[in-house]
């Protein structure tokens, strides 16, 4: 339930503020919700595409509708992360395993810490974007390197 609420929060904010562009964003948003519900029913299959659809819907909103820096971007990022994590947690709990009670609240604390840290980093990124910089090329290279590093890290972790 928490995963769905967080997910709907990501999309709802974008759709409400989309104005005339809302009908264009409704289809991918609806598909994303459907993918999320199906994933929760079918043990996680389709959760990745659901996250992609939500992120894509928000980015489309930002690029085509919002002409200023959206201050809610960090919150949207954290909600998207939470929807993925909460969905995974609910799927893990379906295994009938007698667990120590402390495991649940330790995972909750870890998730909260990750969410807060993510919120802080995203907010920092948005704040830094307001700082004028004459080193546009340097930022571009750094951003490209970060993108490659993120993708490469993911591949390395998966293959380890």
């Amino acid at each position, binding site marked *: 339930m928490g995963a769905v609420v967080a997910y709907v929060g990501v999309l709802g904010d974008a759709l409400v503020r989309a104005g005339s562009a809302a009908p264009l964003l409704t289809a991918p948003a609806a598909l994303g919700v459907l993918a999320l519900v199906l994933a929760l029913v079918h043990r*996680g299959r389709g*959760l*990745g595409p659901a*996250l*992609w659809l939500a*992120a894509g819907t*928000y*980015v489309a909103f*930002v*690029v085509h509708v*919002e002409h200023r*820096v*959206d201050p809610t*971007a*960090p919150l*949207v*990022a*954290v909600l*998207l*992360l939470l929807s*993925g*994590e909460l969905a*995974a*947690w609910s799927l*893990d709990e379906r*295994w*009938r*395993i*007698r*667990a*120590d009670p*402390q*495991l649940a609240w*330790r*995972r909750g604390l*870890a*998730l909260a810490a*990750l969410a807060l*840290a*993510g*919120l802080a*980093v*995203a*907010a920092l*990124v*948005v704040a830094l*974007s307001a700082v004028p910089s004459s080193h546009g090329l340097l930022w*571009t290279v750094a*951003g*490209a390197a*970060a*993108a490659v590093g*993120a*993708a490469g*890290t*993911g591949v*390395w*972790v*998966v293959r*380890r």
Partner: protein
Amino acid sequence: MTGFTSWRLPAYASLAAAGLVAGLAFGRVEPVALAAPFVLALVAAVTEHEPRVSVRLSLDRERALEGEEVTATIELSSPDSVDRFELLVPLPPEASIEGGPARALLLRAGEERTVELTLRCERWGAFSFGPVLFRARDLLGLRSWEGEAGEPQPLRVYPREETLRSLVAPLETQVFAGNQVSRVRGEGIEFADLREWQPGDRVRRVNWRATALRGSLWVNEQYPERNTDVVLFLDTFAEVRAQGRSTNDRAVRAAATLARGYLQRKDRVGLVGFGGVLSWLVPESGTRQLYAIVDTLLASDIVHSFALRDVDTLPPRTLPPKALVLAITPLLDNRTASALLDLRARGYDLIVVEVSPLELVDPSFAASVELAHRLWRLSREALRWRYEQVGVPVVTWREGVPLAGPLEEVNAFRHLARPA
């Protein structure tokens, strides 16, 4: 251990990369902010490493009776901290663990933990528990490592025996001392008859009262106590099984009960498992023979076979002359019937205990199936009639009835109809 990553990691990595690229492509900071928390999650996953865990499985005993509880102890230790350690003890269908076979716990660095599981086996058999399957995961479940550890632990679950007050006495005895009163006269305790003294008779056998009455020496004759040979003939060609109960289970319990009863009387007991897999034990006496019989019974299982079998395939010493053959059969296979009638024709003292399968058959039938069911019951009646025609007592042991009941029927039959 084998390492696995959650489906979320590739999704997070692709989202992070796409967010950063989209930020560059569109010149917007929002996709980069969207990617930030996912990058953090990736960093959290990268910092995890494969833990080193020691797992040891043990059972508090190697033998148990049906329905008894056995404690399985799993000792865990790790020099590293494991945020979530899951373990699973694979179980056979006949066993269960209170609370389920899986546990999840936190393992701190350097800590030794002991997990005790209460195991319960509802059915006899020879089982092996282990190795333990385990999975070590990080806090968020982004990465996990799976493996198995611990040596398999054997557990023999013996059939629960019934209480018998009396056993079926064989008609003939053997030459060794035992608890069965023999028909043949000799040295013993039970008084048999009086006869005139003959050279060689012992003085202590003289019946002084009869001697005084008749004026010449008269001696007592006794019936000696001898042992007997009993062969338990177990039909393992076929069984009827429903809702966790089966005719073979009851047959094995009956065989174990009878084996213990006869061995306690110092009789020699043998075993023949007549079915898809042929097994036998030559009649012997003593406690070791009891364990050998029970261990053979634990391994007995229904193996479907179309091979023709007869008693000629058994070694000669398996069926000694004058032995009582107690056949425990559900009367489902004609090959067993042929073998038993063959034994009767060879002069063996044969008793058939029918383990009734009727209680395991669903009584609610469609009309066409009901006709088949009636025909089946009639064929079983015909088979019983064939046995009775040659003087073999056939008793039916129904579910829920103690084994002592059918055995008393056999004693009554033999008391009324003295076999030739």
